[in-house]
C-alpha cells in the first residue's frame, strides 16, 4: 500500500495536482466560491464522518456539517497557513461544533439512550475505506493500544462520544479528578506514540 502511494504521488503521470487545502482556504478568505466548492469536495467527507461519529443521526450530522462549512466560509481569513494544516483547523472546528450540538440539544441525550454507553466507547467501528484513512486509522489504533484500558475508555468516550468530563465520570462511576487525569495522561501517551510535537 505504501509503495503504491509513493509511486502515485511521485509520478509525473498524475494529472495536475489538486490545490492544497491551505491554498484553497486562502482563496476562500477572499470570497472565492469555486475554491470553497473544491475545498468542500476535498474535506467534507471527513467532516461529516467525524460529526456523524459523534451525533450518529445522519440528517442532524449534515445540518451541523453545513454550519461548519459556513463558519469556514466566514472565518477563512483567520486561518494562517504557516501555522498548521487546514485539516487540523477544520477538524478542530468540526469536533467543537458536534460537541456543541450534543450539549445544546436533547439530541445528545436521546442518542445516548438509543445506542448506549458500550457502543460509544468503541472507538473504531467503521471499516476504513481509503488507503489514506486506513493508514491513519491503523496508526491511531496502534497508538491507542498503548494506553491503559481505562485511559482508552475515557478518551474514547470524550472524543468519539462527545461526553463532558463530568459525564464521563458519571458513566464510569469514578471521581472527576480521576477522569481529568486519565484524559490528560491518555492524550499525552497518544501524543508521544503518534509523534505529535509542536
Amino acid at each position, binding site marked *: 500500500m505504501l509503495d503504491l502511494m509513493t509511486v502515485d504521488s511521485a509520478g509525473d503521470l498524475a494529472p495536475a495536482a489538486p490545490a492544497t487545502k491551505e491554498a484553497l482556504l486562502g482563496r476562500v478568505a477572499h470570497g472565492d466560491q469555486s475554491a470553497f466548492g473544491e475545498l468542500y469536495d476535498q474535506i467534507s467527507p471527513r467532516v461529516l464522518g467525524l460529526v456523524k*461519529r459523534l451525533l450518529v443521526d445522519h440528517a442532524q450530522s449534515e445540518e451541523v456539517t453545513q454550519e461548519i462549512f459556513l463558519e469556514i466560509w*466566514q472565518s477563512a481569513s483567520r486561518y494562517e497557513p*504557516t501555522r498548521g494544516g487546514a485539516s487540523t483547523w477544520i477538524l478542530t*472546528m468540526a*469536533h467543537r461544533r458536534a460537541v456543541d450540538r450534543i450539549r*445544546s440539544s436533547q439530541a445528545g441525550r436521546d442518542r445516548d439512550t438509543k445506542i448506549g454507553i458500550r457502543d460509544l466507547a468503541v*472507538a473504531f467501528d467503521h471499516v476504513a475505506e481509503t488507503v489514506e484513512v486506513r493508514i491513519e486509522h491503523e496508526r491511531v489504533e496502534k497508538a491507542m493500544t498503548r494506553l491503559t484500558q481505562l485511559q482508552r475508555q475515557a478518551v474514547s468516550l*470524550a472524543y468519539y462520544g462527545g461526553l463532558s*468530563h463530568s459525564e464521563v465520570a458519571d458513566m464510569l462511576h469514578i471521581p472527576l479528578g480521576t477522569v481529568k487525569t486519565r484524559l*490528560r495522561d491518555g492524550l499525552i501517551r497518544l501524543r508521544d506514540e503518534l509523534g505529535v510535537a509542536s
Partner: protein
Amino acid sequence: MTRDGRNDAEQHPADLAGAYALHALDEHDTAVFEAHLAESERARIEAAELNDTAVALGLAVAPVQPSASLKANLMSMLASTPQLPPVPASRAAGPATTDAAASVPGATSVVPAPTSGGDAPANAAPSGAGLNRPVADIHSRNGAASSTHLSATASERAQTRWFKRPAQFLLAAAAAVALFVGGTFLGQTLNTNQFESQQASGLAQINAAADSQRAATTTADGQEATLVWSNKLGISAVLVDNLPVLPSNQDYQLWYINGEGAASAGTFDSSGDGTAWRVLEGRMRAGDQVGVTVEPNGGSDQPTSNPIVAFQS
C-alpha cells in the same frame, strides 16, 4: 456539574489540558483553563500538541459522503453570508523581534497597528453574520512581562500555533491579553488581578455559551461597536474599537435599558486605540437594550446624555 472538582480545577488548571483538547469541559472549566493558557507558555505548547493529537483521532474516522443537496445548499448561501475581512498585510508582516507572535494579525481591518501594543480582543464581525462565536485574532503580549527574552523555537511555534486555535480559545485568551496591554484597565491597580480574571472569565463564558449571540453597530462617531451576550447566562459584554480617550473628569458608563428604565452596568475608560471592552455588571434580561453614555467621573444614577451607542439584544 457543580461539585468537588470545581475548586480542584481552579487550583490545578493544568489538569484540564486533556479534557480541554477533547472539548470535554463545561463553560466554567473552559474559562478557567483558558485563563491558565493566557498565563503559561508551557501550557500553550501542551494544549497545541494535545489538540493535534485529538485531530489525529478525528482523522482516523472513516469519511462519510454528504448528500449532493448539502453542497448545493451551501453554495447557494455563500453570496448572502458575509465574511470576516481579510487581515491587512501590514498587520500580518509585523516585526518578529519583540515577541514571537508580533505578526499575528489584529482583530479588525479597521484597527491601525497601535504602537503601544494595545490590541483588540475581538473583531467586529459583519453584522448579521450569524456567527455563533466571535472570531478573534490577538496580539500576543501576554507573556511579555516574563518571557520575551525566551527565544526557544518551540515556544515560538507554540505561540504561533496558539493563534490558530479556534475562535473561542482566541477570544478568551485575547480577553486576558487585552487586560494587560490594552490600557483600558491599567489604571485599576487595586485587586487588579481579580478584576481582570473576572472580566476575562465573563467574556470567555459568554463566548463559550451555546446561545452566544452578537450584534454589531457603529457609535455616533463611527467606531465599530459589538455587543456579545448570552441570554442563558444573563451576561453581556461591549467591545468598541478606538474609543476616544475621555477627559479625566468623565467616564464611559454602561446601561441595561428596558421598560423599567435604565440600570447602570458599570463604568470604564478607554486608552483611545485598540479595543475597549467590558463585561457588564448586573444581570441582563432577554430583550434588554444596552447603551453606553459619557458621564461625569464615577458615573451617574441615570444617564445624563444621549448614548454614544446602543444595542438591541
